[in-house]
Structure formats: structure tokens, C-alpha cells
């Protein structure tokens, strides 16, 4: 990166991370509120950011606000709900083009921040002090439809079911937007108080990135008394007992296999496990791709992904129903080979280079910078992508083999395609 990310605490519970970088043609300001996932609050906290950003006092309906965004050269005001282990991240963001491209002479940062702050601090309410009925109904419907869309996408659905089963009964097993039932029972009356509670209790991670020069004083003034300094924790490790196996059927032409492994890791080992996951199934030169796909022709995709905050590694594939067992065995055989030290220096180098390439690309996208540093809030002191790349290059074969031996199979979820469809 040409410029360094600046970290500034702007209050007890809020930090501003900014990067003034004119090589971007755009800017992005986002406010992310991190709270523990609970059955009681997950659905409401997922609904609230889209509800408050529907309209503002100055642009008091959906169309008026969107016309304003169009006038601001197609700027966007978005909400985003993410999940990190047992934590929910409720985000609102604005993005738009840099001042030098605004031919109408607008100060884009000022215009965009004004919109963002107004939806956070003075959202539109009706005479009773509630969020408008119509907006509430629409957003609730859309949140329910998003649940339906996740069911429609079988890859997403299979992964989510696997994660639910893996963390059943735990905080990390709660869906990032709560359950369908939690959404259905939401009522308009309780929401203003919950919004206030979110602003009071969340940990704020604020980003101002791209071709803009934000005034930290302004953020201090706005967020200085907001939020609370919660320590972000990771999902506690529990040694898997018996492998949990769940098979569900749907009339599909391809079956999905999702396997979840638990692992006991420390925050500082994140890059080691990323590397191990890359060797196992993260790149086209990985064991799963080379063997399960290329040699055995069992699938189009078979890949692994690692979540440090959750202490979990997932392997997922789409296969013929008749090949479900065979594929599971093949995945376990590749893992076993890795655990027994069957990994060449070349395989290790390939995985390192692929990960370094991805890490060095982070700085080229504002969204990627935000994603990187938001996740790093869980393992502070935050590493830059460059520091992570340096750490990564230091690992040896034995380290990766040792890491693979800490994987313990916990859950096998199979979405079985029934024949004749």
C-alpha cells in the first residue's frame, strides 16, 4: 500500500481506521457495530440498519433518498450484517466518487457523511416516535425473503446448515440475521429502544477510506460517547465427541457435502491455519483440487475454508449422489496424508505464494481493506496484510503438518439430491 492505515480511538467504545489514498477514484465511510449474537436481539439488529437507512428527515421517503444518491453520481448508502463466530457486525456505509470527479463541485465526503450520520443519529420516525409502519413492514418482508433466497442457493444453504449443526445450542450457531421465527415475531414498538441499545452497547469499528481526508475531530464528536469497550472473544474450543451426521433430502440433480472440523487455535496462529487450509483445499494446486477433482473426477469444486474466530475449518463439494461416501472418504484420505507429513516443499511454497498474492492485493480495494481490518479486530494487535504475508512465509512443513493434526472432524452435513428429478 502506498499509504498506511491510521488507527485512532475516537471514544471508549469506538475506533476510527482511516486511509487517505488518492489513487482510488472513490471514497467509502462505514460504521460497524459489533455485538454478541443472541436469540433475543439477532433478528432486530439485522433489521434495524436497513430500516434506519430507508429514508432520512431531509429525504423522508425511499424515492427521495434514492434520487439524492443518484444526483450524488450514483453514490450508495448500504447496510450490511456480518457474522464472526459468536458476534454480529451491524454495518452502515456510504460510498461515492472522489471530489475531483464531481463535476458539480460537491464536497462528497461532507455530503455522504451527512447522510450516514443522519440515519444513525436521527433516523426518521413517525409522530409516535416509532419507525414508520410501511418501512418496517417492507424491511421485515425483505429480511424474510433473504432467508428464502438462502434456501434457494444450495451451496449457501448447505454451508449454513453445517454451521448450525456444528454450533448447535451455542452463540456461534445463531444465524447472522436470527431465525425465521425471530424475524416473524418482530414488532415495531420495541425497535427504537433496541436501536438506542445497539448504539450504547456495541463496539464501533469505523472506516474512512479512499480519496478523502476525514476530520478525526468530527468522528470524535459524533462517536465519542457511543458504544462500549467490549473485548471481542473467539468461539471457545470444545473437543468433538462423536461425529455428528445429518443427511437431508431435496429433489436436486447434484448432492452437496459439507464437512466441519474443529481446531484449537490461538489468535496468533491464524496465518498458520490459513496456510494449512490452502495446502489442503484452498487453491488449484491443493490436495483436494488435485486429487478429488483432477485425479478422481468426482466434482467440479472441492475446497476448504478456515475461520479463525470460529476455530473451524469447512470442506465443501458438490457431487453425484452415488459418490457422496466416496467423496467423503477421499477428503479424509487427503487430510490423513497431510497429517502424516505427505506434503512437499513445492506444495507448501505454492500455497504460500498464492496466499501472499491475495494478501498483497488487499490494498487495491476499499471493500477488501475494510473486510481485512474489521476481522482483525478479533486478533489485535491488528496485522497489516503485509505483516501477515511475512509471518506466513516463515512457516515450515512441520508446522503445517502439526497444524493439520489438530483438525478434528465434528460434523458431516449432506444435502442429498433425490433421483428422478
Amino acid at each position, binding site marked *: 500500500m502506498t499509504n498506511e492505515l491510521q488507527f485512532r480511538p475516537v471514544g471508549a467504545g469506538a475506533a476510527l481506521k482511516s486511509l487517505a489514498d488518492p489513487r482510488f477514484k472513490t471514497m467509502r465511510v462505514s460504521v460497524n457495530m459489533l455485538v454478541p449474537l443472541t436469540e433475543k436481539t439477532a433478528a432486530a439488529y439485522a433489521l434495524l440498519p436497513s430500516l434506519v437507512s430507508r429514508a432520512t428527515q431531509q429525504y423522508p421517503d425511499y424515492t427521495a433518498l434514492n434520487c439524492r444518491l443518484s444526483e450524488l453520481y*450514483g453514490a450508495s448508502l448500504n447496510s450490511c450484517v456480518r457474522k464472526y463466530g459468536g458476534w454480529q457486525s451491524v454495518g452502515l456505509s456510504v460510498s461515492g466518487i472522489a471530489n475531483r470527479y464531481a463535476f458539480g463541485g460537491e464536497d462528497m465526503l461532507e455530503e455522504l457523511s451527512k447522510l450516514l450520520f443522519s440515519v444513525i443519529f436521527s433516523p426518521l420516525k413517525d409522530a409516535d416516535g416509532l419507525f414508520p409502519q410501511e418501512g418496517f413492514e417492507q424491511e421485515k418482508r425483505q429480511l424474510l425473503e433473504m432467508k428464502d433466497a438462502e434456501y434457494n442457493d444450495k451451496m449457501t444453504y448447505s454451508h449454513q446448515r453445517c454451521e448450525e449443526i456444528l454450533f448447535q445450542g451455542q452463540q456461534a450457531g445463531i444465524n447472522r440475521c436470527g431465525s425465521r421465527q425471530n424475524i416473524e415475531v418482530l414488532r415495531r414498538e420495541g425497535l427504537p429502544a433496541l436501536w438506542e441499545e445497539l448504539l450504547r452497547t456495541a463496539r464501533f469499528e469505523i472506516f474512512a477510506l479512499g480519496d478523502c481526508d476525514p476530520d478525526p475531530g468530527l468522528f470524535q464528536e459524533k462517536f465519542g460517547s457511543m458504544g462500549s469497550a467490549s473485548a471481542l472473544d473467539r468461539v471457545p474450543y470444545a473437543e468433538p465427541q462423536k461425529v455428528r451426521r445429518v443427511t437431508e433430502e431435496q429433489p436436486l440433480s447434484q448432492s452437496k457435502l459439507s464437512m466441519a472440523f474443529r481446531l484449537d487455535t490461538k489468535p496468533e496462529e491464524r496465518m498458520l491455519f490459513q496456510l494449512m487450509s490452502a495446502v489442503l483445499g484452498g487453491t488449484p*494446486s491443493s490436495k483436494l483440487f488435485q486429487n478429488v477433482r483432477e485425479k478422481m473426477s468426482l466434482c467440479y469444486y472441492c475446497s476448504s475454508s478456515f475461520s479463525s474466530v470460529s476455530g473451524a475449518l469447512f470442506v465443501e463439494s458438490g457431487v453425484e449422489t452415488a459418490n457422496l461416501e466416496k467423496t467423503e472418504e477421499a477428503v479424509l484420505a487427503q487430510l490423513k496424508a497431510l497429517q502424516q507429513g505427505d506434503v512437499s516443499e513445492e506444495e507448501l511454497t505454492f500455497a504460500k505464494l*498464492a496466499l501472499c498474492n491475495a494478501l498483497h492485493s488487499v490494498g487495491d480495494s*476499499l471493500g477488501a481493506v475494510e473486510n481485512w481490518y474489521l476481522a482483525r479486530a478479533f486478533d489485535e494487535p491488528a496485522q497489516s496484510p503485509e505483516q501477515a504475508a511475512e509471518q506466513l512465509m516463515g512457516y515450515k512443513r512441520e508446522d503445517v503438518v502439526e497444524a493439520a493434526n489438530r483438525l478434528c472432524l465434528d460434523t458431516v452435513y449432506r444435502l442429498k439430491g433425490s433421483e428422478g428429478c
Partner: protein
Amino acid sequence: MELQKITGQRVGDHYFKYSHPTGLTIYLYPKESGNTTYAIFGTKYGSIDNCFRRSDEPGPETVPEGIAHYLEHKLFESEDGDAFARFAQTGASANAYTSFESTCYLFSCTERFHESLEILLDFVQSPYFTEETVAKEQGIIGQEIKMYDDDPQWRVMFNYLRAMYHAHPIHLDIAGTVESIAQITPEYLYRCYNTFYNLHNMALVIVGKFDKDEVLALCDKMLKPCAPVRVDRVFPEEPEAIVEPKVEERLAVALPLFQFGFKDDGGTPKTEKDLAAMEILLDVLASESSPLFRQLLDEGLINESSFSYEYFEGAGYATVMFGGESHDPEAVAKAINQEIARLEREGIPQDAFERAKRALYGENVSALNSAASIANGVLSLTLKGRELFTYIDALATVTIDEVAQKLGTLREDHSVLSVIRPL
């Protein structure tokens, strides 16, 4: 060596165009400030090219469906190993894709760009197919086809194209079918490779940090001379009318999906200005600031995360389409038709026209942040005979009358509604 410099006055960027003696057109777009350099090498050969005529041979020739995509998979293999393994040594992230009209091979890297470029230029020009390697891919591509069979968005789109097009191969699945790929042999792959991977039919685009002279020197070394053979696409006659106005299928979904749109004249080539006028019209008609979007949202007929629209056009086909999830797709189609009729009656509001222009300008400026989006944009435009900055300029200069004229192409009697419903 003559490099033509092409400048985008409105966005402050520029790139160079160079016609290499081998016939390849090369585009070099400097982006010094980023870390990533992106290279893409593509041929004007996609899933619609199942019937073609070479300028050095008399008759048109027909081949099984799915060869372009099959070739894409197999080109990664050579006699001495696969290209992924070679890219793994440089750390570049490599990939490829086949679309309706092109096949593209690409990589992005932050280091060792020249080595990766050499691999790209080498493997795309070095076909190696045997009975054994071709057979091995049947299982992998078979699973790729089945993955898409279960993808409701893919299904709603192809059902739509099949209901709209009688004969044009745009209605055929990109990967072909399990049956059609069973007919693919090394001979077919070589035949299509030798026809379409002629450098006169290809383009190379590089965006990021590079030394122009070094890149061109490497091209001189790596590019193999090609006979100046032209390939013409041969399409069957496509009637103006649609096949059927409505098509439905049931799948394992929780919420219905729809694709609705209008068949446009595919025979006339479209200019940058035609595209700009249509993009502005669609923004006025259906963007989040439009009255139609608000009406559909208020009536609970669409949601923000899935509703989209697109002017989908190319060689011999053109259609304006709207898609998304809806409990009542028929009502969405009706509302779109009514709004088009209203705009025809009342004209396009000046303020909505101006807003759409600003929004599209901003979106295009934003897209120039990313080396990947620039490279893919330049390549797909060039393979269709268009140019990036001319398109961005057209967005600024197109008139409200030119936009209004496009309304006439959205004819209800040429519309198709495709729906996927729950089982």
C-alpha cells in the same frame, strides 16, 4: 512499432492499443499506483459459435454444443503438466471463463508479472488433447452442468432465452449438455481450437504496473504467426417473434424467481451510443430512484437484494430483461408494461434523465478503481468492436430524444415471462 494512445478525457485515464504483426490486438492500460497487475487473453469464441465459416474454406461447419467451454477446461493441460501448476510457481491467481461470445484466460498478480505473462501466452497457444485427457474431463464438467441445473437463477434465465429464441444458439447452455459433451473428441477440440484461437480473432489486455517495451518484447518472443484467416459466425434465421410468452418450472426453492423482458432486433449492430441510451432508459425506468421500483417495493412484489435489469445483447440477439424474486411475477410484468406505456404517453422526465446520467457516470468512474473490472470491460467491449471511453463519453452526450426512442423497442407483444416456482 506504433502504439495508439486512447484517452478518456472525462475520467483522466488512458491506455495504448497496438496491432501486433501476428494479428493480435494488444491493449496496455497503465495503473501505476495499485499492487495488482491483471492480464486477460481472450478469443472471440463462445457458446453461440457452433456453426461457422472460415474464410479459407467453402462451407459452413456445425459442431456439437459445449466445445468452447470444454476447450477452456482442456487448454490448461499440456504435455508437460498443467498451467495451474506453472502459475502456482509464480504465485499468480489464474482462471478462465467461457461466455456466450468469448473464452478468456486470465491471471492477477502482485509479483513476477513477466513470468506469469509468459505462461499465459504460452499455454493458450499450446493445445494438447488426447483421448484420455478428454475423457477425464467428462466427470468434472458433468458436475459443473449439474451444479447449474440446481441453480434457479441459471434455470430461470435459460428458460427465458428458450422461450424467446426459436433458433439462435443463445438459448443453448454454455457448457452444453451431458449428452452433447459425450460426443466431444480430441479432433473436434483441435478443429475448433485451430479455427478460433487464431490471433486475428483474439485480444490481450493488461492493466496495472508494467513496462510497455518489455511486454511488447515478450509478445514478440511468444506470439506465433497465424494465417490471416477470418471466421464468420453462421446463425440460423431467427424470427422477429418470440416462441412463447410464458414459461414455468418447479424447483426446490422457497420463493419464486422470475425473468421478464422484451425481444429486441438482434440483427442490427449496436453502437456505444445505443448502449448508453438504453442504459439511461433502464435507469429512468427501473432504478431504485424510479417510481416503478417504489411501486413494486410498496406492493411487496420485489426485494432490493434481488431485483435487477440488464440490456443483454450481442451477435444476433438483443433483449432488455428484468429479474428477481417475487411472490407474484405476473404482477411485476404487468407493472413494468404499464410503466413503459406511461413513459411513452407522458415522455421521459428531464430531471430523471439528468439524474440517470449522473448515476451512470459515477458508476463507471468507480469501476475504474479495479484492474480486473477495467481489463474485463476493455476485452469484452473490444471483442464486440466497441471502446471503453467512447461508451463513457456517450453516456454524457446522448440526448433525451435518443433515450426516448429506445422505448419503442420494449414491445409487450414481444415479451417473455419465465418463472421458477416452489415444488
